[in-house]
């Protein structure tokens, strides 16, 4: 979905994730597992994408856009952009809270911003963002919001903050 030779003149997703657009949010708790840490006991960087996905799935369950909903409507929602900033290490058995915020968008895409913290601690350990687009199961990009998403957007209208 992403061009193989991105134009270096483009604004980065990291910059985009800092914009203060209206959002909806959901927070979930995650316990770091033994299989997720490296030989030094720190979480391997690739697992942060899974933590973000867990928060995104919690959001989907809360707001009626879980994976089953997409499947029922014959729509796929591939991640086409991922950005992660790592601020401090996470260790084995840490109990984390991960917040996923859906940014309001006019175009047919889901842009989530994420914040990862140790539970009950204010320090931000990592932050990031993803962009998902809507496609058919054969991979054709949907240029406008699918009807079931328009229904969700209408229902969410009073909830954006």
């Amino acid at each position: 979905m992403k061009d193989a030779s991105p134009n270096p003149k483009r604004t980065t997703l990291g910059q985009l994730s800092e914009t203060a657009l209206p959002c909806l949010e959901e927070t979930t708790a995650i316990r770091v597992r033994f299989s997720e840490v490296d030989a030094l006991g720190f979480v391997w960087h690739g697992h942060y994408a899974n933590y973000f996905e867990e928060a995104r799935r919690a959001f989907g369950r809360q707001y009626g856009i879980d994976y089953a909903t997409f499947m029922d409507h014959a729509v796929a929602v591939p991640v086409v952009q991922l950005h992660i900033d790592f601020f401090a290490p996470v260790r084995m058995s840490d109990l984390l809270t991960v917040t996923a915020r859906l940014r309001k968008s006019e175009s047919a895409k889901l842009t989530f911003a994420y914040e990862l913290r140790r539970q009950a601690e204010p320090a931000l350990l990592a932050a990031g963002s993803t962009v998902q687009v809507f496609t058919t199961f054969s991979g054709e990009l949907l240029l406008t919001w699918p009807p079931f998403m328009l229904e969700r957007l209408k229902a969410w209208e009073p909830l954006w903050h």
Partner: protein
Amino acid sequence: MDDIHTLKQEIKRMMVENLMLQMDAAEINDDQPLLGPGSLGLDSVDALQLVVALDKEYGLKIASPEVAREVLQSVATIAQALIQHRAGASPCPPPPHAPA
């Protein structure tokens, strides 16, 4: 001729602003492909943003992938679609089975 030249400049400026391209509108060529190898480097997310911008700024609605493939090839094809839209014509003919 001047009108279409002005329209193409407007489209380039609209693209730079809406897609947050870190380049000057004058650097975009009329016939430069927007997507794919050797192109301006736009991606699927940009295409979605461009669809919204064309609707908001010109009232041109691009709902189907077939029309998008025709219209979003270059600045020149976008300009041509906008001229047809202003003249009251659809940017692409309806499918053969569509009711008259």
